């Protein structure tokens, strides 16, 4: 069966520090991968998606970037965090016409 892992589960970072969140999928190949952010009062927003290694599409302009160095690995990064980057970050995968399946999320707090 397929599983998706995100880490860390919780992160507290100072403003201006770098960020790296990792997401990996097991039990499938060539998945489509997604990063979402869920901020208070703003719902769930798609940030990036990837249909293959090295292929990244950005949905909203922001301070973040994404990379896909391996087929089942998706990384969310920032060089300098802003207060507005706080939120709950969710990774998801899908393949074909399957519904998206989500990881457990990372809660990011910026101080």
């Amino acid at each position, binding site marked *: 069966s397929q599983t998706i892992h995100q880490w860390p589960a919780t992160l507290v970072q100072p403003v201006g520090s770098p960020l790296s969140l990792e997401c990996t999928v097991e039990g499938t190949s060539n998945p489509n991968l997604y990063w979402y952010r869920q901020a208070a009062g703003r719902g769930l927003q*798609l940030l990036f*998606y990837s249909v293959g290694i090295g292929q990244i599409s950005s949905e909203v302009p922001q301070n973040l970037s994404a990379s896909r160095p391996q087929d089942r690995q998706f990384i969310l990064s920032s060089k300098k965090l802003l207060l507005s980057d706080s939120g709950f970050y969710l990774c998801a995968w899908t393949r074909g016409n399957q*519904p998206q399946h*989500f990881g*457990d999320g990372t809660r990011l707090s910026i101080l």
Partner: protein
Amino acid sequence: SQELEQSPQSLIVQEGKNLTINCTSSKTLYGLYWYKQKYGEGLIFLMMLQKGGEEKSHEKITAKLDEKKQQSSLHITASQPSHAGIYLCGAGPPSSQGAQKLVFGQGTRLTINP
């Protein structure tokens, strides 16, 4: 761009009562997904609807998509404490290059009182 509006935003019901959550789209729905989220956790897939008039059930939860494919409802029968959480509907245009670009409603927070 497509927008989804959920109602109500929050709901408190007595255990054992029935309830309905609605999701209305600004555009025709090509696929409508219902998810459940417990606070601070990921989303759990519940059901997917694609055809006008389609209805699906899983245990005590039934989801329907109207004939015009612009509104969906989620109905819970004889609610239990395990049903508590945030329910989100998600939808998107036909897949582009295989990607499923979903937009989500703001969610409905369901509380079950014993």
